[in-house]
């Protein structure tokens, strides 16, 4: 059963009607192929029109869509010989952060990401993509491993943010994130990060301080959730759509602010309508970004990455 977002209601109604007509036909009723075709065209143009002008808040909902391809979907489709690694060597393995080794277009790479899960069971297992200190320490370990063996790093980021918990704080959530950012910046290997859904604040940048940063067309990247921002600045979480607008959190905004390098177009109606095509497009863009970096030595990569971040935001005006 397809999950429709609130603003997709007219679409849902149309598709419901199409489904109903088709069932009538299947049951041996009158042939309504022509009518179905007409409605299909109508649904397509409605979809195109809706997605051509999504508001920042609607994009936030799309970015969080439960059917959107998740980190592990990208890894399974794009990475051969996928070999997950586990643990921070100190406390636990955090399944909110996925990491391991594999091959991307034949080349050995290290892969990292935050995984939200795609059904109730896996969502609980991955803690809805909200990592604890162990997760960021695992990320740092894998980044350092990649550095030691000259493996390029790919990351796929999709998280509402770091997990806000008592134990997480007691074990040094802030320090774990800081060290993970540091590891990203220090890695002497090419590093391409992709925001595939939600790029939630410190929990996202911990895996995304990379040479090239990609964002999917309908993904978001923000310092705070629109709801959180609204409840602080407007004292009303219901103002989230207004906050989403003000935060400039869409891929287009981030590109305009020169904070990300590439926006990857999504299939019509969002990645959730054609995950395969979305994943293939990401694979292509990741390779396009990675390939030129492969010629650079570690010191050059590190120096340029630093320069990139030091320059960030200096001349940004929307």
């Amino acid at each position, binding site marked *: 059963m397809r999950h429709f977002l609130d603003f997709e209601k007219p679409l849902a109604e149309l598709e419901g009607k199409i489904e109903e007509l088709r069932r009538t036909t299947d049951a041996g009723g009158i042939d309504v192929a022509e009518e179905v075709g007409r409605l299909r065209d109508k649904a397509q143009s409605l979809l195109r029109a809706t997605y051509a002008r999504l508001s920042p808040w609607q994009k936030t909902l799309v970015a969080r869509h439960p059917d959107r391809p998740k980190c592990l979907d990208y890894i399974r489709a794009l990475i051969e010989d996928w070999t997950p690694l586990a643990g921070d060597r100190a406390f636990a393995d955090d399944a909110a952060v996925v990491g391991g080794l594999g091959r991307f277009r034949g080349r050995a790479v290290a892969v990292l990401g935050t995984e939200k899960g795609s059904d109730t069971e896996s969502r609980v297992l991955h803690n809805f993509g909200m990592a604890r200190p162990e997760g960021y320490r695992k990320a740092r370990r894998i980044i350092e491993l990649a550095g030691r063996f000259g493996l390029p790093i790919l990351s796929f980021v999709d998280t509402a943010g*770091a*997990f*806000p*918990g*008592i134990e*997480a*704080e*007691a*074990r*040094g*959530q*802030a*320090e774990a*994130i*800081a*060290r993970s*950012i*540091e590891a*990203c*910046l*220090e890695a002497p290997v090419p590093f391409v990060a992709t925001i595939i859904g939600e790029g939630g*604040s*410190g929990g996202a*940048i*911990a895996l995304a*301080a990379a040479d090239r940063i990609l964002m999917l067309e309908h993904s978001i*990247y*923000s*310092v*705070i959730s629109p709801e*959180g*921002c609204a409840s*602080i*600045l*407007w004292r009303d979480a219901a103002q989230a759509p207004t*906050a989403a607008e*003000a*935060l*400039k*959190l869409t891929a287009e*905004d*981030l590109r305009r*602010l020169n*904070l990300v390098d590439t926006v990857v177009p999504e299939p019509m109606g969002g990645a959730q309508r054609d995950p395969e095509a979305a994943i293939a497009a990401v694979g292509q863009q990741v390779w396009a970004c990675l390939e030129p970096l492969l010629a650079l030595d570690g010191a050059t990569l590190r120096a340029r990455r*630093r320069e990139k*971040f*030091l320059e*960030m*935001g*200096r*001349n*940004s*005006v*929307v």
Partner: protein
Amino acid sequence: MNWISEWALPKIKTLFGGPREVPENLWHKCPACEQMIFHRDLERALHVCPHCGHHMRVGARQRMDYTLDPNWQRIELPKAPADPLRFRDQRRYGERLRDAQAKAGQEDAVVVAHGAIEGHRAVVAAFEFSFMGGSMGAGVGEALVTAARLAVLQDSPLIVFTASGGARMQEGAISLMQMPRTVIATRMVKEAGLPFIVVLADPTTGGVTASFAMLGDLQIAEPGALIGFAGARVIEQTVREKLPEGFQRAEYLLEHGILDMVVKRGEMRATLARLIGLLRVPQRESESLPEPEVEAPPALPAPAEAEKPAPVT
């Protein structure tokens, strides 16, 4: 109006307090124990309550006075883009920023100074919490990068006093990017072989904690300071548990291995001076140390040459 009324008088007023402010400013109420403290006693005690030891929040310039020897110098900071998003909530961010600047007499939430701590040269950056909650946007990031560059240039340790609610939301993802930017600043100082010391003051939370503020060679905090990543209310709502006693306080962090020490404000200057003295052994001096009387165990390796700090000239 001549210059005396325009410039000199307001300045004198701020130093001694206008006559109308005297009655309410003579006595301060401690927010912790609620006892009244005479203002001169409070100043003498560096804004630590003489009754209960509560460390009150202090401004960036007070910090400099408490930490650095007299005649410290404030550094002019490069201008960061103001209001890059043209952000507006119930008010325009641009207006809020201008108000804060006028009130604080500084461009943004961090002041950078250089000087000496009991004779040891140092660069100090201090957060002004009263400036938009010490929140970190491009201006704060720029200040910390500048402080790091200055420390390297002057071959001085960098000490940062933090007090911040976290990222400056009104700068959106640009404020988020200050996390990696300030982490780079810490790398510059460390790569130059210089100590980077963080002193966490009340409160330090969010993106500030999760970037440069947790990467000190040494991590110090003031007693009772609230330090954490997530806000207490968010945690409570998420885990639906009562937070433990003293949660996210300096002493709690010390107990959990996140800090080196909790140091009272009155002992901060001497502690910093001692630590800098210990970390910055001049090379010549260490080479000329007298041979130990007792024979050292032969297995003990000599410290690697490359790891020694550069000589102080």
